[in-house]
């Protein structure tokens, strides 16, 4: 697929400051060396197996299939991986690579917090320092993950520039990397950024699709009709798609976060609403205005709330090999609730975007067709936000509920004493998730202070 080095068609490239060029060249050389090194590959496979819990299950969703009355639905259970999402696949690969390169410190951006938690986990395991940049708005939406990262020994830096979401966290991590290259590896969390990241991350995530293929072959003796995954930057999607790209009969479907709908501005559906541009090190599609200013995108899902998409997806879309469909907040929330009720599996709100599309499509297909949906992560982290979205009073208003009162009594300083906006906001909105997380945000240096 790489027609020119680091390019997918016209997309990709290395649009980064000169200061970083030798770092990405060094990374590329190290990656080329270690991916061909059987000891490295064996060590990584060992971590996948013994630490992350791979292979992840391919689960036949019988009740869902019967209820929808059409295509047979399988779920690729990346949510069952250690740390609860597909992010660990890439992170174990990159952290091990960084260690071999002699780096002492990992930095990462995170949206929903899953990549940050995975990076903090790998750093703890491999004895590396870890600093995670997270949009301030996301530290509030995903307070539990902030706490987890801190617990794992990472420093979490809330980013207040721009919109305070994933794109700003990426920018902050890139800025940090330019100031400290020698001992630091930037553990990018998706198939985006400058070459070689889109290729490295894809290769480490490709295990998802490889497993789907062999597991389905074992269970059904055939290829699926379609594989479906949610797309923000697009790492679980490319991981799901990659092994099927050559199987022309298998449809590849990426589900973008449409937010409140692709007709308005409150959306993050890049392929559906964006145009080609150059940002964050790559040429790809971006949500932007007529002068190329990057748009403040929106999605209920912090993990998909990004104005760009990985360059390989841009290419797969252009050549018609993969299809990218928009899924709105409300559709994703309904899928989140549906899977919980129907199969007893609470999916990440990101993954619920992919489920929603499967729910729409399955009834239109014959019963001999198979859909595989990648459940990229588990939904524990989203429960408070979805409850809030649904207006459930006991999670919404701290004051009246037992949970909030208990929290307040046990840890009054988190609710009332902290000076930071983050802590205060979080305290009001998510008392049950507060333990520690609010104060982490408050105590951590804000990005401007550095």
């Amino acid at each position, binding site marked *: 697929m790489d027609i020119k080095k680091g390019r997918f068609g016209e997309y990709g490239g290395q*649009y980064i400051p*000169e200061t970083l060029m030798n770092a990405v060249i060094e990374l590329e050389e190290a990656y080329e060396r270690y991916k061909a090194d059987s000891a490295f590959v064996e060590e990584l496979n060992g971590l996948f197996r013994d630490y992350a819990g791979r292979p992840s299950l391919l689960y036949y969703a019988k009740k869902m299939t019967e209820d929808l009355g059409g295509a047979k639905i399988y779920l690729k259970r990346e949510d069952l991986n250690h740390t609860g999402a597909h992010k660990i696949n890439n992170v174990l690969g990159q952290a091990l690579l960084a260690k071999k390169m002699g780096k002492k410190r990992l930095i990462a951006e995170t949206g929903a917090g899953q990549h940050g938690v995975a990076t903090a986990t790998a750093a703890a395991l491999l004895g590396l320092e870890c600093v995670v940049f997270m949009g301030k708005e996301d530290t509030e939406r995903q307070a539990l993950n902030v706490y987890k990262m801190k617990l794992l020994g990472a420093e979490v830096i809330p980013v207040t520039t721009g919109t305070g979401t994933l794109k700003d966290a990426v920018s902050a991590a890139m800025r940090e990397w330019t100031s400290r290259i020698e001992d630091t590896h930037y553990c990018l969390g998706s198939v985006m950024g400058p070459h070689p990241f889109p290729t490295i991350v894809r290769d480490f995530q490709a295990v998802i699709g490889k497993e789907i293929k062999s597991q389905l072959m074992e269970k059904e003796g055939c290829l699926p009709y379609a594989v479906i995954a949610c797309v923000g930057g697009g790492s679980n999607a490319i991981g799901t798609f990659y092994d099927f790209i050559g199987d022309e009969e298998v449809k590849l479907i990426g589900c973008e976060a449409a937010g409140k709908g692709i007709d308005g501005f409150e959306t993050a559906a890049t392929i559906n609403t964006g145009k080609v*541009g150059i*940002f964050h*090190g790559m040429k790809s599609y*971006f949500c932007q205005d007529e002068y190329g200013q990057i748009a403040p995108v929106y999605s209920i899902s912090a993990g998909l709330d990004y104005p760009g998409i990985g360059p390989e997806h841009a290419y797969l879309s252009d050549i018609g090999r993969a299809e990218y469909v928009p899924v709105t907040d409300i559709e994703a929330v309904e899928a989140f609730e549906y899977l919980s009720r129907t199969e007893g599996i609470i999916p990440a709100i990101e993954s619920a975007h992919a489920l929603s599309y499967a729910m729409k499509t399955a009834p239109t297909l014959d019963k001999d067709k198979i859909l595989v949906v990648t459940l990229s992560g588990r939904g524990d982290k989203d429960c408070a936000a979805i409850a809030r979205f649904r207006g459930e009073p006991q999670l919404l208003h701290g004051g009246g509920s037992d949970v909030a009162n208990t929290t307040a009594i046990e840890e009054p300083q988190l609710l009332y004493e902290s000076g930071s906006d983050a802590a205060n906001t979080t305290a009001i909105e998510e008392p049950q998730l507060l333990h520690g997380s609010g104060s982490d945000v408050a105590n951590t240096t804000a990005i401007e202070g550095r």
Partner: protein
Amino acid sequence: MSNIKKAFDHGKAFIPFMTCGDPDLETTIEAVKAAENAGADLIELGIPFSDPTAEGPVIQEANERALRGGVTTDKIFEAVRTMRKDVRLPMVFMTYANVVFSYGAEKFISSCAELGMDGLILPDLPYEERGEFLPVCEKYGIDLVSMVAPTSEDRIKRIASDAKGFLYIVSSLGVTGVRKEIKTDLSGILAMVRQYTDTPAAIGFGISTPEQAKRMAEISDGVIVGSAIVKLFKEHGREAPVYVGEYVEKMKKAVL
């Protein structure tokens, strides 16, 4: 060859940077005039970008202020047209690749030439990617300025050999912003650069005081100052041009 070479004809060059439209374009126009009168040799005009990944907080905030004020590429082009009635100095735009790409490289760069701009600096366009815009820049006589960083090492030969206009030597790791001290072995980097090119080399990033500027000018052909000037716009708003003039005068004296 553009007029950029002329900027280095009057001793060591002093190159102020300002963000267009912070706080408004009228102020930018007046500040450029003030800088020219105060002895600036070349002006670097920043076209704001929503997500300037090579900038520190000071210039990031200036970009945000300018964009909130409604500045656009087209409005900046109009301001430069007005400016050019009085200003004779060589001028270059500093912006990000997407600003040029989304406007259309041909349309953007031909407009630059038509407006009397001399060069273009894109901090997210390294040597390997300059093919994106270089052919169009060459077609219209706009110098695509390359940067050399403290980490460039073996890349210096290629970058310096193909330098256009002037070489922008990045003084330190990290993003733009005022620094107390600059520790990079800049003399070593400049010596390497001079093995491969006669193109003037100016040092930027982190310079704010006359003492720093003097030291940097001793080892290079000029000094670029951004954040320290952008701070004047934050502090003085529409009154900034007077302060910019005073500052440029002081700094030009220091580098001479």
